[in-house]
């Protein structure tokens, strides 16, 4: 009995020492806090991880809470940098905004669908269930399958904002999570209409997926047009600061806008902001 107790004690000591060592290794000297939009946060999280690996000893804390929180925290000095998923408003010109990426979404349907264009009103009517057959908009006599995004996704938020809808008004037939699932759903259903991030849609369409990207207001849905700022269903993703950034904050913002971060931006289906 005594021997086994000693054995247990030994194990316990190993555990405590081990955990203590792990905790000690994580102590960092420099710290940067970012708060704000949940759209920007996953991207910034990835960029931060790469930044940390290049600059050992730097610890970057990314917290979500919405664009409004990002602005408040930055103004109050709680956060070093705020994340905002829209252009700054006129009454926010006390802040400095640095666009790290652009977010654009495209309405997609199956390549065999003969419908060429849809107006903004028609799309809204389809999503709210006022139009239920493709015949009403010049297509074949078939029921429209409305594909919507799950609550909380930034694509849904941008879509609702652009069409001035609330999510409870939408009458969906299929609800999807991520972009690839949305594209798979539309390619498998010739009568479906959906919307996904423009980067993902263009990538899959180029690789031969039978989907078509719908032009809006006569402007083709493409990464290039989002980059130019002409495509209406898009928005900038900004990092904001109260003063011209210096030191660590400045290094991080520069890194987030650099060529190095563009791969991370594209991996999240966002469009890299024009390099400058």
């Amino acid at each position, binding site marked *: 009995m005594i021997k086994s107790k000693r054995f247990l004690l030994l194990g316990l000591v190993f555990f405590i020492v081990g955990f203590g060592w792990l905790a000690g290794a994580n102590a960092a000297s420099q710290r940067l806090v970012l708060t704000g939009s*949940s759209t920007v946060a996953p991207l910034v999280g990835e960029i931060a991880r790469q930044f940390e690996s290049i600059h050992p000893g730097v610890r970057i804390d990314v917290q979500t809470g919405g664009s409004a929180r990002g602005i408040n925290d930055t103004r109050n000095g709680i956060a070093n940098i705020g994340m905002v998923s829209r252009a700054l408003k006129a009454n926010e010109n006390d802040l400095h905004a640095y666009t790290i990426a652009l977010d654009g979404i495209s309405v997609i349907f199956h390549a065999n669908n003969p419908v060429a264009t849809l107006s903004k009103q028609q799309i809204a009517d389809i999503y709210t269930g006022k139009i239920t057959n493709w015949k009403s908009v010049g297509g074949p006599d078939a029921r429209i399958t409305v594909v919507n995004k*799950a609550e*909380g996704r930034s694509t849904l938020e941008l879509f609702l904002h652009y069409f001035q809808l609330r*999510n*409870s008004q939408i009458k969906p037939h*299929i*609800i999807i999570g991520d972009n690839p699932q949305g594209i798979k759903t539309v390619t*498998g*259903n010739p009568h479906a209409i959906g919307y996904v991030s423009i980067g993902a849609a263009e990538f899959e369409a180029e690789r031969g997926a039978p989907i078509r990207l719908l032009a809006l207001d006569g402007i083709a849905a493409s990464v290039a047009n989002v980059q130019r700022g002409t495509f209406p269903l898009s928005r900038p993703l900004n990092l904001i600061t109260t003063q011209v950034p210096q030191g660590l904050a400045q290094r991080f913002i520069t890194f987030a806008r650099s060529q190095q971060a563009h791969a991370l931006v594209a991996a999240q289906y966002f469009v890299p902001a024009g390099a400058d």
Partner: protein
Amino acid sequence: MPWSQRNILFRPVLTDTLIRWILRAGAVASALVMLLILAFLLIESWPVLYQISPARFINDASWHPLEGAYNLMPMLSGTLLASVGALLLAVPLGIASALFLVFYAPASLALPYQRLIELLAGIPSVVFGFWGLTTLVPLINQLHPPGASLLAAILVLTLMILPTITLTAYSALKAVPDEFLHGAAALGLSRWGMIYGVVFPAARAGIVAGIVLAAGRAIGETMAVLMVAGNVVQHPQGLFDPMRTLAANIALEMAYAMGDHRAVLFVSGLLLMLLVMLLSAMAGRMGKNQYA
């Protein structure tokens, strides 16, 4: 004689003492993990449980957490319908396959068939989901749009739980003592008479355990169902209506949920946990009442 009691026949030697402590530690750890999960779910869902009355999870107009509507009932009914539907299909099929394997199949066929079922058990659920999304859903769509539906979820779940039921029923049937079979044969029972009258009662506990295991898997399955069920939050009116399960709800919305939205998702996790606890309690009852 219960072996855990102290016993005059065997004096505990060092190995026994050591093993006892290791096993005790293991038992405490697994019990603790279970309790910690429950505590974690309660803590994470506390912000909404504290603020709003539980009746709102039943009476709210819909599930739109960002607009403050938190009705979880459509997802509860979706979870139950999909699981029950899959069980209705998989239980007869699974037991029939096991019977075939043990009592009817020639030896040359039995082994390859068993290997096939074992292979089916090893396929990851996301593969089933992917197959469902690219093959099954378009097929059902031709029959009745939109394709992503309760039916698709039931079929994919059936495929997933079928091997569990078959393999557990197979081992339960195999475990029936040969003496029972010899006795039945000596009484002149037909093969089916023997199976129905002797083998089933003797193997019942094992078969039921397999069904409960399968039911647990069906209730908790996430990715495959998420990909084929359509995920619209509504009480499905028919087999072709899309619906959402509790597990899919968490997977679908957790990544981008914040504040109350996040907490409500933990409530749906809590509900899922209660459902599974209820199931295992029921299984315990069934195990007790059965003839041994």
